[in-house]
């Protein structure tokens, strides 16, 4: 497989792993958020419901108190008394001391004319007969008005009580401080986003809300949606999704007290406030991503390694197969060559027989003939030897099994070649493992192999160089290596050197059978033979032989 395929595979695995790990995580997150949000909404709903109820009670109490004190003042004073401004002023002072929140106080006769007035505005002598509240109080006796602008052109509302004195009716009327009233209502606000306000039957704001709208402007709340009991209405119905409204009708006035909570904004604030948690989650995701990438990389790298190893093994298998096939072919070829050689040899023999005859002996070219015949025989012998070498080793008898000491064989081999090497200024050194166990094998054949390798090394070096022969105990095998610092073998030839008849040497100098024969011998013994070579640095041939312990004597 090429690099491209692997990097695509890597991307696929990473994406898949991330998808598999993030999808449930995200689903879980969304689910938890949903559940949490639902719980939170429920909690806010309860809270504003309760607030609306309790605030309504408080506001009712506030209004009832003020109404009661106003009624008590009216009941305990006559019109004549009240029409005097000093009395009125002292009454206002008493009322404010007892209850508070009264801005002014006025006394109005049954015709709507204000007889006396104490307060910050100049309202004495005004006629209220046309004002809606006046009609209400005259007919009902007590009245709390909606907020209106009135003569003073400022939003306010009044509490008025009627007193019957004999045949005459008169009205005591007080203005409630709208700001103070607004503050009492606003106590109902919840959290940063909550609001509390009062609207009348038409939905007109009677107090200043915190967030949107102004007093006397229409509010989003439609009072008709709210029943007798305290009720919560979803803001979606009022064009304010995400906001909950709880409303309670007041007992003392025709007003709806509304407490609202912005769930959406609350939640958003809640979640944006959890930066640490967000960081932890993001960190966790990052960790997952990094781990996935790391694991995948490692996995793919291992796959590449496994494939490389497999390919190397394949190459070795092909090499073995090829050499085996070559061996079979060589055997067939040998027969085809040996038969003509046999004929040639008989023919030259016959020629030699004839050359023995007297008349030919005397012929002037007798020597030429005889030399030619001998040369032919010499070359037949050369050809025969090549074929014999090739077959003699390839189809040799099973290797003998005798107790052998590899170190001794190496020493003997070095002895054979030492002088020849020294003449070429080549040093042969041995580094032998003294603890090498004895094994079973064919000593002569192993010697043949080492001889071939060292001969090759000497040939490769030419003059001036070093050959190191090592032996070592490697697990259940013996490793023998022959290393030289010769010119090395070019990469493209490294697979070929084991082929029969592959040689780079001049004709007559090398047949190219040495390595092939060696390879075959080692293979028959159940071992392996490999080479490492760097052009310019040298070559190392390594033989691994399985240890077969010799039977005890």
């Amino acid at each position, binding site marked *: 497989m090429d690099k491209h395929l692997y990097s695509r595979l890597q991307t696929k695995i990473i994406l898949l792993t991330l998808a598999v790990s993030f999808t449930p995580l995200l689903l879980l997150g969304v689910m938890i958020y949903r559940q949490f949000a639902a719980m939170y909404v429920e909690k806010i709903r309860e809270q504003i419901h309760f607030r609306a109820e309790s605030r309504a009670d408080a506001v009712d109490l506030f209004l009832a108190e003020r109404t009661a004190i106003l009624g008590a003042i009216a009941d305990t004073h006559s019109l004549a008394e009240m029409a005097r401004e000093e009395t009125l002023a002292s009454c206002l002072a008493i009322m404010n001391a007892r209850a508070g929140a009264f801005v002014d106080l006025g006394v109005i006769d049954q015709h709507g004319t204000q007889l006396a007035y104490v307060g910050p505005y100049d309202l004495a002598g005004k006629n209220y007969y046309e004002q809606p509240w006046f009609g209400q109080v005259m007919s009902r006796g007590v009245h709390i008005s909606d907020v209106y602008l009135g003569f003073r052109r400022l939003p306010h509302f009044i509490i008025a009580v009627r007193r019957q004195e004999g045949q005459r009716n008169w009205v005591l009327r007080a203005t409630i401080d709208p700001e103070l009233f607004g503050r009492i209502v606003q106590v109902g606000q919840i959290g940063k986003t909550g609001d509390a306000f009062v609207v009348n039957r038409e939905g007109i704001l009677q107090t200043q809300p915190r967030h949107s709208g102004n007093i006397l402007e229409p509010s989003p709340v439609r009072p008709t949606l709210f029943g007798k009991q305290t009720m919560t209405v979803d803001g979606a119905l009022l064009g304010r999704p995400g906001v909950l409204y709880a409303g309670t009708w007041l007992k003392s006035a025709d007003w709806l007290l509304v407490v609202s909570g912005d769930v959406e904004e609350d939640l958003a604030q809640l979640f944006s406030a959890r930066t640490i948690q967000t960081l932890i989650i993001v960190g966790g995701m990052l960790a997952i991503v990094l781990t996935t990438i790391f694991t995948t990389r490692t996995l793919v790298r291992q796959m590449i390694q496994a494939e490389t190893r497999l390919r190397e093994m394949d190459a070795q298998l092909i090499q073995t197969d090829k050499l085996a096939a070559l061996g079979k072919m060589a055997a067939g070829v040998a027969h085809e060559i*040996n038969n003509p050689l*046999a004929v040639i040899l008989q*023919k030259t023999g016959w020629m030699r027989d004839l050359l023995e005859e007297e008349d030919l002996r005397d012929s002037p070219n007798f020597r030429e003939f005889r030399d030619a015949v001998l040369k032919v025989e010499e070359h037949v012998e050369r050809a025969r030897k090549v074929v014999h070498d090739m*077959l003699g080793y390839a189809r040799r008898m099973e290797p003998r099994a005798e107790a052998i000491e590899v170190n001794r064989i190496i020493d003997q081999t070095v002895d054979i070649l030492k002088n020849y090497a020294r003449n070429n200024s080549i040093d042969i050194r041995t580094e032998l493992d003294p603890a090498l166990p004895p094994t079973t094998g064919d000593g002569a054949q192993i010697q043949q192999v080492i001889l071939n390798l060292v001969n090759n090394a000497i040939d490769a070096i030419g003059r001036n160089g070093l050959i190191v022969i090592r032996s070592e105990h490697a697990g259940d095998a013996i490793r023998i290596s022959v290393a030289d610092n010769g010119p090395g073998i070019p990469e493209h030839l490294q697979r070929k050197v084991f082929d029969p008849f592959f040689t780079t040497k001049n004709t007559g100098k090398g047949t190219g059978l040495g390595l092939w024969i060696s390879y075959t011998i080692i293979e028959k013994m159940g071992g392996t033979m490999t080479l490492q070579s760097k052009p310019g640095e040298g070559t190392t041939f390594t033989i691994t032989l399985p240890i077969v312990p010799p039977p005890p004597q």
Partner: protein
Amino acid sequence: MDQPNILVVDDEGDFLETLMKRLQRRNIPALGCSSGEEALQLIRTSPFDVVVLDIKMPGGMDGIQTLKEIKKVRPETEVILLTGHASIETGMEGMQSGAYDYLLKPILLENLLEKMAQALERRGGAAQRAQSERIRSLLPKG
């Protein structure tokens, strides 16, 4: 020596022909033929002391088969196998089937004569021993 007591069997005509000429020149009473079948027929008619037999003869009985047949008909016959194949296994098989020895082609005549002399000696009769002596005398000393 009128009656030839040595038989050479080889499918390679040039080889057989030349070898026969050389044996004749040395007065060795040999007969040649080019197939196993032919050889068996000859042996059935009259006995031979030594048979030189090529192993690989495509197109008919091969040397090993012929050898086994010869040994059935005339077990006393000594057979020298020739092979172009340096195959120890076939050589061994031949030995197990009763061949006296085997030689690898290409052969030198001297080697063949040597083997023949040994085989004749082994046959044991007086005539054979005399013939063996004579053949040995043809070989260069040493």
